[in-house]
């Protein structure tokens, strides 16, 4: 197994379980399951034991490995500089071993099968990929400056489609030249890679790269931070080299310069960092710039923010496989409770996966009366409509 040489070097000091301010557990799987086995250190030692044939490939072992949502908190907090950057890679390598052995949880198997057969995790027809744009005047990409890449959730999930339309509307309103590929694109594959199905990821990436290159795509705006991560960082190894932006990076400098005609009612807002924007790519400020530039916003941070943000639990394929479950210790529910403690009326997100997961958590926590999850382009559209 790749990276097996680092597994025994983990001391299990436990910094990986916490945020930098130590205020609560910050590893989503550990938070959800509580057993040491689900902590990064426990996973390291279990992988070592599994390779040494001390542990068999049980359902529990599979669940433990696939409960890692690739949030990167362990990498951020680990105190061992000589191997911390390889922690997630080791977990992904462990998942890859299980995938290659055909021993994965049923939900992971079904999800990967959908990716393989349909190019998306839902198992929906590829031709429906542009459904989100049917009532919008969005061009097919030809000579536009940017390709707009909506990703799986933006293409198929009803809430994701709403967010996708909102972002597209804001991009158009601000004169951004963009087009889409619709049914000609497939999943960005970020979750496939995170689940250790590296060959399928290669296939998906190469399919997209073929499409992008055939139309001479140079710049890409992604809706999802997950797609942003894959196309920006992982497509390079397959020859896909583009300037990749998350939409917040495009909109932040534009909204920052805008002026407004009238005041709008105040709105107390906190912001949830997406792991694939934040910890994985160091992008913490674009969304905050947008929020702080909009009139009426009273911005407040949660205790765990930026590098120390608690993941919603939607990464690593868990958005589709739901390995973490929906119990009270589910990280999304913990995150919503934390957001509500700030007395914010809106929890802003910049990721369609975070939006869906956290909205479910609001309902589960019965906090509908206190807090609402909104994606930042929705907030911007709402405020700009009132202010202009």
């Amino acid at each position, binding site marked *: 197994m790749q990276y097996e040489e680092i597994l025994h*070097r983990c001391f299990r000091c436990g910094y990986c379980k916490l945020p930098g301010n130590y205020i609560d557990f910050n590893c989503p799987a550990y938070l959800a399951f509580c057993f040491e086995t689900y902590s990064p250190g426990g996973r390291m030692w279990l992988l070592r034991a599994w390779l040494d044939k001390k542990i068999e490939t049980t359902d529990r072992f599979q669940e433990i490995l696939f409960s890692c949502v690739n949030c990167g908190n362990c990498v951020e907090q680990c105190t061992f500089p000589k191997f911390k950057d390889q922690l997630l890679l080791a977990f992904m390598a462990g998942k890859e071993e299980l995938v290659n052995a055909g021993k994965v949880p049923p939900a992971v198997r079904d999800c990967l099968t959908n990716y393989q057969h349909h190019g998306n995790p839902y198992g929906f027809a590829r031709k429906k990929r542009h459904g989100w744009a049917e009532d919008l005047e969005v061009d097919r990409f030809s000579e536009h400056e940017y390709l707009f890449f909506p990703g799986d959730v933006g293409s198929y999930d009803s809430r994701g489609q709403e967010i996708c339309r909102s972002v597209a509307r804001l991009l158009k309103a601000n004169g951004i030249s963009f087009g889409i590929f619709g049914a000609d694109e497939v999943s960005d594959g970020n979750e496939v890679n995170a689940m250790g199905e590296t060959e399928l990821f290669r296939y998906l990436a190469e399919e997209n790269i073929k499409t992008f290159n055939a139309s001479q795509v140079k710049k890409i705006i992604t809706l999802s931070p997950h797609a942003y991560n894959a196309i920006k960082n992982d497509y390079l190894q397959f020859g896909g080299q583009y300037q990749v932006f998350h939409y917040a990076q495009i909109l932040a400098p534009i909204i920052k310069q805008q002026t407004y005609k009238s005041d709008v009612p105040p709105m107390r807002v906190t912001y949830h960092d997406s792991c694939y924007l934040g910890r994985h790519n160091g992008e913490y400020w674009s969304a905050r710039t947008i929020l702080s530039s909009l009139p009426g916003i009273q911005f407040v941070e949660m205790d765990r923010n930026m590098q120390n943000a608690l993941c919603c639990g939607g990464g690593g394929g868990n958005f589709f496989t739901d390995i973490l479950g929906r119990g009270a210790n589910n990280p999304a529910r913990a995150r919503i409770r934390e957001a509500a403690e700030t007395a914010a009326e809106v929890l802003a997100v910049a990721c369609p996966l975070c939006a869906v997961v956290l909205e479910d958590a609001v309902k589960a926590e019965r906090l509908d009366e206190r807090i609402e999850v909104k994606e930042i382009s929705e907030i911007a559209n709402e405020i700009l409509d009132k202010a202009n």
Partner: protein
Amino acid sequence: MSGVSLMKEIVEKLVKIVGAEFVSDQPEERYIYSMDPGTMPPREPDIVVIPGTSEEVRQIMILANRDEIPVVPLGAGLVLSGLSRALKGGIILDMKRMNRILEVNETSRYAVVEAGTSQGMLQAYLKKHHPNLKHSAPDAPPVATIAGNVSIHGSGHLSHAAGFHSDMLNGLEVVLPTGEVARIGSCATSPYWFSRAPLPDLAGLFLGWAGTTGVITKLAIKLYPNYKYNDVGIFVTEEAQLIPDILHRMTGTQVAEDMTTWMTPKPDWARGFLHCDINFGANTKDELIWKRNLIRASVQEYIDQKVAGFMPLPPAMKQPFLEVPARTLSRFADVRRGGGFEYVGAIMPVDLFPEAYKVGLEIADSLNVNYSLGSRIIGVNHCMMFFYAYAFNRADPADVERAQKALEETNRIVVDMGGIPWKAEAPAQKEIIRKMDPNMFDLMNRIRAVLDPKGIMNPGNWEED
């Protein structure tokens, strides 16, 4: 009923008490909970349970007592000496879900917390809600629990000022092995958790016993002023025999919060020197300077003789010495690229410092192990915790064995020297018992027989061969 059937029945009953998601008899949990990061060999529990309330702990103890199932309470599992291994199987009681901070009394300076509350969690809570207060945190990583550290007589960043962490304990809630829930200290008779006095002090029944007398479920600890200005000085000498007097003089000023010594062959500039870190704080800059001058004046004689002196420390270099806990300490485990270190922490009089230091060097040299030596002063030089830390490569059985031998050798020498290994692993406990007044050991056994008539609490600890 066969052992397997009994355990199956116990699992079913535990599920009814805490919920299915918090009970496991699966091989993965049994494997991970069979060991800690130290060198002690694994011992598998039959079941791991994560209770959420004192009432759940009570029900678990009644069940375990009825069927004579061993129970081992577990904090963060960082004791390193294997105290929370299930030496005779049974149930490991992982306390991490009981992590609520129940009360902070700002005026009387104490906090009441559940037993699974971590050092880091309380530290963060105080910083946010009570920034003028702090607790004494150990050098352990921040996931270490407050209850675990208090129960082993831990020490930390306020131990020069206020003693062992067990000295900072105001009261306890414990679940006895027979299932009764008892409150100890002022909380037994008052809604306030302000003190163990003036009642008979029963807290000692649960401190230093390695979890063999009951399960701590809540505790109150003292809090201290969190100073606005903080500083550290490092006093350095090459002569170990001077250290007891240096510490005696500096602690005599009673202005510092923490005093530690450290001796290590790496980095190269540190080799051969004995460093004494003095941490102190103040409410004003003037007060800080006054304290600094008092400490300096106490050892001026040695400075004038040019046998010792303060290391020049630019502000940027001070930061790692002011960090609580120091994140870099864990990195010692990677010295041999093997994820392991363990240490003997020996509680002993400060007089023994030169001998303790010499022994540490000799053991490390004879067994060719990477070492880190040091001490923390407890109280006003009343005693010290002298540590001998040895790194090892977990993937190399010969290296693990070398570290084990170093620990065994150190424990034996420490006991013979007149010290007492702290949070001693089961073999070291036997070394201590060998030297212990037999009447004290007899009293320990009689007390345990009363508290735990069926011997279910962490059996295998504090036992003779």
